[in-house]
């Protein structure tokens, strides 16, 4: 089938959560045409398209995908393995977009990975899948089996010189495995602790070999970029950044959920129109725009376009693009405590600030929330924020964990003081 019509929802066009398309159905709807198109081109040409498209990694950091790939050294020894990994260890509080995509359209992940594998000359791929995603595991495995039978995975794919096989690795389940170097250690069977960079995984990653780790959603963008070009992709964005994005909202809104929208859609549209606004009887107090490890924003920021630079400019992060809403009836300190405890629990234990700083913060927050706080605890919390700030820790886990706390201390100062002065939680 020849597809000439570019889709308006390139990420979710094939999405079917009840019964995802099998290989033939996916192919009928234009599946694997993007890969075929890529295979006809040199890897340099595909890389140039991805670079031109301005696709940015959807894992949270927003690093340009093409640039990341370009750091992989050129092949000098074809017998040396090179690895491609899909980071499907989605554990960010509030994020469930990757699960949605993988359960609804498993073949599109494989197609995206095939394009990436062709571009960076990878010959082995892994989907590092969160342990709890059992439905996704089943559906992906089915899709992989279909592809193997159809010659889309394995040696001499579609008669070309390309060899690429794909494996699912179900993770033992740690938040830190979302950090790409910790993920690589876990894949090697080691403790999931991050590695220092440099060397970057592109140069020395899995088993010391060149490795690219990309987020699941990033791969979903690839087939249509190759098929319809960088310019088309750029034109999809509503603001600065290119393409579309899966946005989500959770919390006390009328319709929590996920939507594929143009990159740069405003927060107001996402929360008020797509999620239907706050549930009856609740007011919007604040929200985390990009998941549990992003700074709170306030209603006054609602007109900010949800893209990487715009959200940074108002003091938070785009992150995973999955918004967590805080209403006026829930205790903000309790929410921060919940998040910080989660991150303290998920610390890998490697570096001191994260390992010891987060539990201290969690302890202080629980003292405050439970009516045993002291005013000096607030200074102590500020110090812990300094301890775990970006650059001071080994990886980005603790600085991320600190974001809701640091913005919380700023935006909810009155609530903190109330808790301490009244020696109880006013929300209970």
């Amino acid at each position, binding site marked *: 089938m020849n597809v000439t019509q570019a889709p308006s929802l390139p990420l979710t066009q094939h999405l079917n959560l009840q019964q995802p398309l099998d290989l033939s159905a996916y192919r009928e709807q234009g599946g694997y045409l993007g890969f075929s198109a890529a295979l006809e081109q040199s890897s340099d040409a595909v890389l140039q398209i991805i670079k031109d498209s301005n696709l940015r990694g959807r894992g949270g950091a927003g690093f340009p995908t093409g640039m990341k790939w370009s750091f992989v050294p050129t092949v000098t020894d074809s017998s040396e393995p090179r690895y491609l990994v899909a980071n499907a260890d989605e554990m960010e509080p509030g994020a469930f977009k990757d699960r949605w995509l993988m359960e609804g359209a498993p073949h599109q992940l494989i197609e995206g990975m095939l394009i990436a594998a062709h571009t960076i000359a990878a010959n082995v791929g892994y989907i590092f899948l969160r342990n709890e995603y059992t439905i996704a595991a089943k559906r992906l495995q089915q899709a992989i089996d279909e592809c193997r039978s159809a010659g889309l995975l394995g040696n001499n794919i579609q008669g070309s010189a390309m060899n690429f096989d794909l494996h699912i690795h179900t993770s033992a389940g740690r938040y830190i495995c979302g950090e790409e170097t910790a993920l690589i250690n876990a894949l090697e069977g080691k403790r999931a602790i991050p590695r*220092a960079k440099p*060397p970057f995984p592109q140069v020395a990653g899995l088993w010391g070999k060149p490795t690219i780790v990309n987020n699941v959603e990033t791969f979903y963008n690839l087939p249509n970029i190759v098929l319809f070009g960088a310019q088309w992709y750029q034109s999809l964005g509503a603001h600065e950044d290119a393409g579309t994005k899966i946005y989500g909202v959770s919390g006390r809104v009328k319709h929590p959920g996920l939507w594929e929208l143009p990159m740069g859609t405003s927060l107001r549209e996402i929360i008020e129109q797509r999620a239907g606004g706050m549930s009856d009887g609740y007011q919007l107090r604040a929200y985390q725009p990009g998941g549990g490890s992003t700074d709170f924003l306030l209603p006054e920021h609602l007109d900010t376009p949800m893209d990487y630079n715009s959200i940074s400019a108002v003091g938070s992060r785009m992150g995973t693009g999955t918004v967590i809403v805080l209403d006026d009836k829930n205790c903000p300190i309790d929410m921060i405590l919940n998040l910080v405890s989660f991150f*303290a629990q998920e610390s890998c234990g490697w*570096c*001191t600030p994260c*390992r010891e*700083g987060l539990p201290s913060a969690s302890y202080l927050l629980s003292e405050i929330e439970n009516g045993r706080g002291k005013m000096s605890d607030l200074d102590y919390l500020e110090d812990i924020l300094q*301890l775990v700030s970006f650059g*001071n820790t080994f990886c980005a886990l603790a600085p991320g964990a600190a974001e809701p706390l640091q913005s919380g201390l700023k935006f909810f100062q009155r609530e903190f003081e109330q808790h301490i002065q009244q020696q109880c939680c006013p929300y209970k």
Partner: protein
Amino acid sequence: MPEINIDGKTYQVAAGKNLLQACQELKLQLPYFCWHPALDSVGSCRQCAVLMFQNDEDTRGRITMACMTAVADGQRFSIEASKAQKFRQLCIEATMTGHPHDCPVCEEAGECHLQDMTLISGHIERRFQGPKRTHKNQYLGPFINHEMNRCIACYRCVRYYRDYSGGTDLNVFASRNNVYFGRAEAGILDSEFSGNLVEVCPTGVFTDKTYSQHYSRKWDLQSSPAVCVHCSVGCNIFPAERDGILRRVTNRYHPDLNGHFLCDRGRFGYDFVNHAKRTEHAWQRNNSSQTTEQLTSQQALDSFSSYLGNTEQLLAIGSSRSSLENNFCLQSLVGAENFYSDNSAQLETQLHNLLCYYRDIQPSSDLKKLEASDAVLLIGADVTQSAPRIALSIRQMIKNAGIAKAATIGVAYWSAAEVQNIRQDLKSPLHIISNHSTRLDDVACSIDNSHPAQQLALINKICSYLSEDKSSDAEVSIQENSIAARAKAISQDLLRAEKPFIVTDIHAGQSVELFVASLKLSAILYRQNKHAGLICAVPWANSLGLALLNSRQQNLDSVLQRLEQRTVKTLVILETDLYRYCPTEKMDLLLADVANIIVLDHLITPSAEQADLLLPSASFAEQHGSWVNFEARLQNSVKCFTPAKQRRPAHRWLTANTPFHSIVKDLSGVADCLSDLPSLYSIQSADFHSARKTVRESGRTALHSYIDIKDIQPEIDLDSNYQHSQEGVASNLDASQSPAYIWSPGWNSSESLNQFQHSVSGAIQGAHPGLLLFAKGQADSTCVAENQPADSIKDPPADSKSLLRALPYQHIFADEELSSYVANIKQLSPTDSIKINALQAQRLGLVANQLLDYCFAAANGSLIENNQTQRTAALPLSIDDSIATGVVLLPALLLQRAAVSGDCWLKLAAIDSAAEESADA
């Protein structure tokens, strides 16, 4: 040299290092936990944070970890900036939220790196009021205490234990602030190098259990720079004493030998000095009254000289575990013609072969060079058991290929975790030729466990490949797995390497031909590549020193011969136990015919029990002495404390108080290579002294007040510049002699080493590295080994089907004499057994655990009756499939005791258990 700026001052620093190393060399105070000079950087503790500025305009700077930052020209840093200081304080504060603050009851306190770093960081206020995490401790064996609550999760223990020493049974478990460092379940630590955990751990999680048994604070210890006596490596140590008890041994850094680490025999084998069976008084046997009488020292000396009055039938035996001076004094006293070594003829010959090799072909190589090697061939030596520290160095050498690979992508050697990730399974080649599995098998790229005859064939083949014209390589078609194929693979690795090493050893019961062939191989390799090295362990701490003094004919075999001929009337035994070299019954008979037996020893050994005159000598810790290690490095060991009661160094019994310096001077005239010996003992100006005791020593005047209230004057040591008191020059970078302990203001733990070094892996300032006796080989001359024809191993003498080639299996905790007196060591020594492979057992109709009797067959084919009674001789059979067919392994000591000269064979027979039982009845 890069020029960097720290807090406004410009410094020249060594290129290729990281900023923490640079700061240490500049003596700038920067705290750290996870970094260790031998384990390098991983950046986990975040304690060495400094501020790094982007350029001259940058005023804010950003926090960076010094240990992870390579120094480069033009960089600007600040240690003192308040932002960096505050971060380091906060980091320590966070660290301490899990720490129990139990310093008063912690054995680490007073020499605790955590205490020191806390002070340096400036953290003083404990704000955290929450509950602390707690852990369960584990029993880790007789050497090490475990107190996990004190852990600060620096990860150094697992990095040392697993990545450095190759252990597998210590690991990190769980995560977050609940990480646990221990074993999967309680049990004895498996590594022979576990004791280093005590020094690697920056706080009191792993502490020395043997020290706990007679614990004293560090500041109350008296120490000296000494040399370990438990094998031939001669690791440098600090013995530490208080009140006449040797309390512990810690590592003394030597850049070319032990570096930062000791083996467990060296660290924990010291308690023989305090043993209940130590000699304290001179005793004389009175045969007429059937009594033993205690003598005064003068009486003992008189008695001694009267015994020596008649030199006609005099025979004296020197000691491989005694100092050069003691042996020399005995030799001078009795005359060289009456002086014999305690080495068998076979060992003595090998030792002389080795000396000749060092002198004529190639000077020896040290462990630092071994660690830098890129290919090692290990022949017939289970070095983990015989000279353990060498094995630890081989483990480091394995990593070089990975370090080189990392360098190609710009990752520095000190970036430990990154190098490991890049290295993965890549190893510099280690080839092992042996007759059974060794503890280094896990890192070897090829292992040939075969019969000595096949080993010899393989080595000879390698020799011919090495000396062959390399162009002929291509045409030979070689069958896979044949000896030729294996020889070629090994040769190629040795030829490809820039610094190939041959590692072997000399031990009792080994195949002589094999050893000679190894020397020959080493010589051939050296002629092709002057960077090639040889490491050859020898049996005991001063085996080579004794060989240096003695002619090869004056050996233990000739002693036994003379005893058998009944031509010995007076026998002087210096610090050796003849019962270790001869079956008990035979030795009893031989000694029964000697009229006067004089034993000088610091332990009541079985030989000492036979003495007519027993003179209590001093242990290594109680005397000055020189030792020659495996590489012919002459090192001096400084007396730590004054021996009690009548104990005195053997040389003082032998020379009636000749000043030590005269002995040294006379000794230096014995051989050209010893001429520099006095430089090791040069006494500085009269007012220069180093203190053996710390300035903080408490209770100096009170220690003996329960005996006498008066202040006892400290002993004056006329033989050295070390004082038995707190008086003396504080040890520091300006010191012109080796410090008696490592301690510097603000640096109370062993980490204070950096305050004594100019560079991170450099020597301790003032410490003498020892004299390499053959620093320059002639290289154009040949030695015995090379001229020896490529011999083949002799066939078994007779009845070849039932005879097996007897070879020793060694064990770190079983074989060495002095440590075998130590209860903790003994606990880990394995039960003796006879070992063969399953196929062999099947052929002989034997099964595992069956009790076996055995008898030896000598080279001439005659069966040697087992001299021990059948009951004690019977040993259980254990099956080990790594053992080559045709070979039977016996405990090394047992084989040595069999006193069979040359190659020997063994006949095995099952003991009829029914007959046994009836005998019992």
